[in-house]
């Protein structure tokens, strides 16, 4: 059974359809990369998957046993966080969703484990605002992992990072996907690299232009234009 199943979904703002006819399934262990130009509906789809906007048509169904609050999320980078006084540990622990008001010993161990997985254990007591861009993304990924055991949504995780740091981050995401079996849905501008790691590609322009395997995608007309950086109609 798919973790998340989207059937003929359409989304609208103020009665204006911005994204329609979207259908896909994400199964455990999948790695779906969503690409498209600005305004193509990528962020709207992300909001739909997170349950922040409802589809006006069609449906988004979560697997039995997958609650809304069990989806990990890495938002687009936020400028105000750069001068926010918080330690790495405080940020990572804020990903833990528990009904109790205070953290249990298990919660803290989980946070430690996720920091280990993201290779930021040694930064635990550092301040979030003193970190580099790549380190910050790893902290936020560890936070997202605290919230989920099954599915991670990533919104342009490598935006603004230099190529070497971005590549390392992609490798870490691949490791989470393959070794920990966590399904990934990622929005990205970086088509070439994304296609290298993803198991599925979805290209949007108000409606899906392509949905399938990455190698097929790179050989299609849309894939070639978009990956080549030249946009053809």
């Amino acid at each position, binding site marked *: 059974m798919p973790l998340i199943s989207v059937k003929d979904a359409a989304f609208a703002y103020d009665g204006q359809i911005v994204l329609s006819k979207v259908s896909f399934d994400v199964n455990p262990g999948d790695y779906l990369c969503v690409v498209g130009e600005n305004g193509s509906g990528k962020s709207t789809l992300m909001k739909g998957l*997170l349950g*922040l906007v409802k589809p006006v048509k069609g449906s988004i169904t979560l697997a039995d046993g997958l*609650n*809304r*609050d069990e*989806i*990990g*999320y890495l*938002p*687009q980078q*936020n400028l*105000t*966080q750069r001068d*926010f*006084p*918080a*330690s790495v540990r*405080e*940020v990572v*622990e*804020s*990903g833990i*969703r528990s009904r109790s*008001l*205070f*953290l249990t010993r298990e919660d803290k161990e989980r946070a430690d484990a996720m920091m280990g997985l993201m290779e930021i254990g040694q930064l635990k007591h550092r*301040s979030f*605002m*003193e970190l580099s861009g790549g380190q910050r993304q790893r902290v*936020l990924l560890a*936070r*997202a992992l605290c*919230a989920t055991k099954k599915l991670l*949504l990533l919104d342009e995780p490598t935006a603004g990072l230099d190529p070497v740091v971005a590549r390392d981050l992609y490798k870490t995401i691949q490791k989470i996907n393959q070794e920990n079996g966590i399904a990934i849905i990622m929005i990205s501008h970086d088509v070439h690299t994304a296609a290298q790691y993803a198991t599925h590609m979805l290209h949007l322009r108000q409606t899906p232009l392509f949905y399938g395997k990455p190698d097929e995608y790179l050989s299609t007309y849309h894939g070639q234009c978009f990956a080549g950086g030249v946009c053809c109609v």
Partner: protein
Amino acid sequence: MFELLNEMLSYTFIQRAMIVGSIVSLAAALLGVSLVLKRYSMIGDGLSHVGFGALAIAMALGWAPLAFTVPVVIIAALLLLRLSESSKIKGDAAIGMIATAALAIGVTVISLTRSANADVSGYLFGSILVISKDEVTLSLILGGAVLILFVLFYRRIFTVTFDEAFAKATGLNTGLYNTLIAVLTAVTIVLGMRLMGAMLISSLVIFPALTAMRLHKRFLSVTLTAAIVSLVSFLIGIILSYLFSTPAGASVVLVNAAFFLVFSLIARIRNRS
């Protein structure tokens, strides 16, 4: 020192001011960290103006001041929060608009009634003499509630303050926590307004958080430092006000400003070495 405190505390009005002021300083500092980081610090200022207007009306009509002002300011807080979230009117402009309108209402009402106890300057800049016994009780209850709620929801307040998008996406009711912060701020502002003055109360929200952030880079240490700095500033301010017969509210604000300068200086020296 002890003699001085003993002497001060022999006056009932100073006892009351000490109790109410300490609670308000603590609550304002705790909430202030979140408000300043969310770029909402001017909400405190806006609410104090609304409080001034409401207080003037309550006094003119002979109603219980707190019982009328607290609900009015809570409603204003919810309204300001709603306005800041909708993009039609920008948050800062909305605050400016509501604040000045409320101020105008207050001044008009006071001048129309011209009752003996309606002293505009007392409202605007605070007075240490006006706190009644009932107000002390109410301050203890409401202020205590603010402190307890803050401690209980500390973890969620951090999550929502740090990253609203993430909090919302992972199923936290961010609207509820924003409302909680706004309501607690409204209550704190009203409780502190008569002592500190409508024009000065928002400094208790802004100064301690900014002072603590000069030296601390973790949320918990910022929060604790802000609370301590706020409480100590208040107590020093009251003592100075007693010794030099200066207005209590203004004295407290000046001590807060002094702490800010000292912390900034230490931060600068520390960065250089």
